[in-house]
Structure formats: structure tokens, C-alpha cells
């Protein structure tokens, strides 16, 4: 089976550690993945903000780049959902028959936990992560893709983990893509309640399958100096006895590199 990794533009640019973790994890499980360099973006930001026409070339590119693979795996619930549910609509809007055909015949796209549990049929991926972790089921993973408890099943099998329940887990964190900017007050109010849940759980790590949601909640956790870091599911599943993820500050937790200079930056005028 030819499996391609769709890393997503956000992870590629902002959180490559997640991509590296996916590769480490899948290679450890004996699965060879390819990373077609022609890939860019699934078009979700454009689509959800109302710029449907602007995502036509992105959908076309996605189809071309991944056409020859048997399966695509993506470490993002919302991007996987965009591809699975909305690429068809974009092709309709474009009124492009070829594109509609390409979308119809595109290989199946799996969110990471789906790929592990349904395709590779594993739940114990041989990870070791002796930390207190709570899991936030992001909305698009749970409601649009229906990943169910696959991520939790994977986390439960991690050795050493202290997995605790997140209060009001199913409530949206308030990210919502450009909602976080257009309605930043409401977005932050929702995020504050998510933070409250995370703090109640007394977890050290907040885990999710979507780095964009984690960027939002993580940004709040960091601003408030809560001492809680965020990690993508892949990063925990890839962690082994000696991996860097065991240390705080590893795994590219960009927020966590707090220095005195950062405090100065934080006070710079808007």
C-alpha cells in the first residue's frame, strides 16, 4: 500500500515536530510513508471563511499530488474533515467536471487515529510517556469525522501515562479558524472555560489531534503561565524511553521557551 502523509500547511510551517512525530511513529510501526513535496494546503481556511473560489486551485493541487496513492494520512481532524466533506462542494462551486471526477476518485484520507486503529489495526503503539495528560476531543475530529474514542484508546495504551478526564471535554475550545480573529472576544471567553477545565484536571499536558485548536488554548495557557504544555496526539504516541518529548521545552513547544526577553516582548506596544 502506498501511503502518503498530508502534513497540512499549518503543521509544516508552525509545528513540524508533529510531522516528525508522525513519521517516527509510522516508521516504528513498520509503515513506510511518503511525503509528496508538491502538497500545500487543503483550503480549509479559505472555505470556512467564505472564499470558496479561492480554494479551487488548492483542491485541484491536492487531487493531483495525492492521486497515485492508496491512502493519505493527516495529523489534523479538521483538515481531514475538510477534504472528506468539503472538497466535493468546492468542485461543485467551480463547476469543473474534471475536478469533480478527481475528488470522487481521490484516495481515502484518514485522520491519524483512524489510520492507526482502522488501517494499521493497532492501539498499543509502543509509546512511553510518564506524564499527567488530558485529552480535548476537537470538534471536527469528533463531530465531523466521528473518530469516537480512538484517540483515547491509543492514549490509554501508552505506558506510564496518567490520563485524566477533561471536564466539559466536548465543548468547543473557541478557536474556529478565522473566528479566533473576527470574534476574538468570544473566542477567548470560550478558551478561558477550556483552560478552566484543563486546570481542574491538574494535567501537565493538554493533548489533541489538531494543532490549530492547541495553538489557541496553548496560547492562553502560556499567556497565563499555567505551566501546562500542549502536545499533539502524534507527539505523545511517538514518545519512547529516550525521546526528547519527555523533557519540557522539547518537541517544539514554542510557547514554553520563556525568557526574560519574552516578558519584555509581551509588554511591547500594540
Amino acid at each position: 500500500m502506498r501511503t502518503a502523509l498530508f502534513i497540512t500547511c499549518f503543521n509544516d510551517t508552525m509545528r513540524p515536530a508533529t510531522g516528525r512525530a508522525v513519521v517516527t511513529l509510522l516508521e516504528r510501526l513498520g509503515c513506510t510513508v511518503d511525503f509528496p513535496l508538491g502538497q500545500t494546503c487543503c483550503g480549509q481556511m479559505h472555505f470556512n471563511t467564505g472564499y470558496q473560489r479561492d480554494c479551487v486551485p488548492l483542491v485541484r493541487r491536492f487531487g493531483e499530488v495525492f492521486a497515485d496513492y492508496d491512502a493519505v494520512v493527516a495529523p489534523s481532524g479538521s483538515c481531514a474533515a475538510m477534504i472528506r466533506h468539503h472538497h466535493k462542494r468546492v468542485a461543485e462551486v467551480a463547476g469543473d467536471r474534471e475536478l469533480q471526477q478527481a475528488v470522487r476518485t481521490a484516495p481515502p484520507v484518514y485522520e491519524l487515529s483512524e489510520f492507526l486503529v482502522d488501517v494499521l489495526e493497532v492501539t498499543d503503539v509502543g509509546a512511553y510517556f510518564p506524564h499527567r495528560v488530558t485529552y480535548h476531543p476537537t470538534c471536527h475530529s469528533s463531530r465531523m469525522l466521528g473518530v469516537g474514542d480512538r484517540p483515547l484508546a491509543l492514549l490509554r495504551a501508552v505506558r506510564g501515562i496518567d490520563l485524566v478526564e477533561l471536564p466539559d471535554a466536548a465543548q468547543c475550545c473557541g478557536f474556529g479558524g478565522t473566528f479566533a480573529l473576527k470574534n476574538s472576544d468570544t473566542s477567548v471567553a470560550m478558551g478561558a472555560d477550556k483552560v478552566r477545565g484543563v486546570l481542574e484536571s491538574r494535567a501537565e499536558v493538554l493533548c489533541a489531534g489538531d494543532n490549530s485548536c492547541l495553538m489557541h488554548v496553548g496560547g492562553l495557557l502560556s499567556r497565563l503561565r499555567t505551566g501546562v504544555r500542549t502536545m499533539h496526539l502524534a507527539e505523545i504516541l511517538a514518545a519512547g524511553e529516550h525521546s526528547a518529548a519527555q523533557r519540557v521545552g522539547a518537541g517544539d513547544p514554542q510557547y514554553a521557551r520563556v525568557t526574560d526577553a519574552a516578558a519584555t516582548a509581551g509588554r511591547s506596544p500594540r
Partner: protein
Amino acid sequence: MSSAFLGMPPFPQAARRALADTQLRRNLAGATRTIRDKRAEVVRELPDWEELREAGRALKERTLRHLDHYLLQLEERVTAAGGQVHWARDAAEANRIVTRLVQETGEHEVVKVKSMTTQEIGLNEALGSAGITAYETDLAELIVQLGEDLPSHILVPAIHRNRAEIRDLFRREMAEAGEVGDEPAELAEAARRHLRRKFLRAKVGISGANFLVAETGTAVVVESEGNGRMCLTLPETLISVVGIEKVVPTWQDLEVYLQLLPRSSTGERMNPYTSTWTGIEDGDGPRSFHLVLLDAGRSDTLADPIGRQALNCIRCSACLNVCPVYERTGGHAYGSVYPGPIGAVLSPQLRGTGGAVDRSLPFASTLCGACYEVCPVKIDIPEVLVHLRARVVEETGERRRTPSPEALAMRAARWVFSSPARLAAAQRVAALGGRAVGSRGRVGRLPGPLAGWTDARDAPAPARESFRQWWKRTHR
């Protein structure tokens, strides 16, 4: 729609004000959680809930796709049963019809059952300017009316008020209230005393309807307090103002909606009272019945094959109670009698996207999908929201001579994402920036549109080495 909401700011600004209202936040958090839990419990009791939802959706689809047929059938049956059917193209026409009908009775007072439709058209204000006093008789509507306030929830319009506020209002505005205390039971008792005389002497009742059955000409009102029964039964004249989308094909179809609505709405297996009537009945109830069928933007909504599913709505308000945005901002921020997720898809379609409020509403959502999950008639609200966002973006593009900054940013992003080489180049530039801030730690406050992000949240710095650079370095 009602002028009462005119002059409201677009959603983000209205929301900011609401978010700062601590009493509102606490009331809403408590109330929405209570109804959510009650709903979940009674929905779990029905093993065939999903089948009921699907039937509820499909029946609405059937109705809407053949609405002209069902409206004509309804008109014929209502008329045959002794009722009179009137048609209103818009709010003003509906208000004129109702005002005339009341004037023809010679009365100057009417009692009203809670009705979203009459709020939507601003009927009370229209009657008022013709010298006719309309008494709202639902407890929450009474609270809103006495306080010269606006409703903030479809089912519980005074959800934003607590008992102390209501007690003060009643003591001030209601002669019968006396020194009433703040217990809900005492307040309800005061409302009963206040309205009793009005019910008993009322000659004209005004209502909406939850459903109209085309096959039989039957109207249905679902309620709890008995004020509905009072208004539907005691007056000599009954006027019901109902949107054209409220038709269902057959009597049998009510077996679906009478199961879906109460459980989704109040979280009860059945609401205390449901009244059905067909035209007029000798010796029982009103001697004349007028049905005013209202368009007011519904046919425009129907014209959009994606947007028309919003007309499936049976006004249960389950979507409000699960919406994380509504839970924090409350209903007023939506600038419409229809708040919450359903309001965000209904108001811009009924009113059009000409105003700033209506253009902001489709964006008042994170697209989390909780609304779709609970909707008893399976309105894919996120789908309609995204669809309306595209409409707003296209219309904005046509209206402006130069593209908006957002449109330019989206175009630039498309240009970058259209080529992996451009993306890689952009990543190198971003990494430089990342390195600059990275050496100083995380990103604090940023200027411009990104300030909305960094006001309360730190921002991550772009990685020094993108994933694709790492891949090329390690896997090639």
C-alpha cells in the same frame, strides 16, 4: 423584522458588551446547562430518536419542495372548516391585516400567545400605533414586555433576567404584585393574578402556530402555562399569524413532530398543553378564526437550495442551548428575534445580507457542529453558515471598488498555497521572523488584525526548520 432590534451593532461588538455582563454570563451558563442536560436525558429514552429526526427532516423537505401545493390544500381545508385565510407578503402587510381584523371587532385590547412570528413582524408596536393594546401572556414574554426589553431566547425569552430583577420589575409595573417575593412560584402566582381578568374579558386572541396540517386544515399550538389555551379558547375572535413554512402534509406527520419538539425544546417528554383546532367549532371556542399566512423573506430563503433547510426549523431552541457562542454572548448580540445558531442562518436569509448585523451573523460561529448534532430536523447549520459566508464575501467583493484587506490576504494565501516553491519560500521568510522572536522567546503582542489574537493569547513563533525542509534533509 421588528424594528426593536434596529441600531444593534454587528455581532462581534455586541458580543463584547454581552461578555462583560457577569450576571448574564452566570444566568446563561446555568440555564443552558440545565436545559442541555434535561434534553439529553429524555432523548436517551427514545431508542428511535435518530429515525424520528430523519423522518422530521424528510417531511420538511417534502413540504418545502412542494410548498405551493400544500399551501393551496391548507387554504382550502381551513376555509372549508369555517376559517378565513389571509396572505401577507411582508411584515407591514401582515400588520395591516391583523390591525384591520382587530378594528373590525371594535375592540381595543387583545391577548397574545407567545409567538416568534408576531415578534418578527413587530405586531405589538403596529397594533399600539393603531391604539390597540396587546397583552403578552406567556410569563417570560410578560417579563420582556413589562421591562420594555428584548427577548434573548426562543423558548425562554427572559433567560437573561434573574429572580431579583423580575421581582423588582413586577413590584414596579404590576399593580397585582404588591410586595411579591423573589420565589419563582410567587412570581408566577402574581402573573396569574395580573392576567386572569384580561383572559376572562378578552374578545380577541392572537397567536402563532407550531404546525399547520395541510391535509386537514388543523393548526397546532404547543405550550406550558395554559395562557395559550386561554387565548385560543376564550375570545370570540382568534387571529393566527403563521409563516408559510410551518405547513406539514398530514395529520399523521404530527406523530413525528410531537415527539421531537417537546424533548428538544423544554426537555420534557411532552409539554403540559398542546391545542389543535380546525377552523371553528360550534359551541366551543372562537366564533371566527383568521389565519394570516406570512411570507416575509421565506420565499427568498426557499430559493436557495442549500439555505432553504433553515426553513425546516420548528423553533425548539435546542441549538441555542448547546451553542458555546450563545452560551457566552446570550441572544441580544444576534440582533434579531431569532438568536443562536438558527438565528445566524435564518436572520440573514429572511432579512437579506444588506445590513452589517446580518453580514456578521454567519461568522458568529466556530463551526463546532454541536447545533447540527441536536437539531431535531437535521438542519446542517454549519453547512448553511459556510454557504452564507461565501455569499457575504461575494457580495462584499461586488460592493467594494477595492478588495478588502481580508480578501487581499486570502488572495495572497491562495497564491502562496498554489505552489510548493512559493510555500517553501514563505516558510523561509517566516522562519527568519521566527528566529528573531524565537531567540527572545514566544510572541507577545502583535499589531494590526493579529492584535485580536495576541490580546489574550500568546502566539507561536514559526518553526526554524519547516517540516518539508526536515523531510528533504532526512528522507531524500
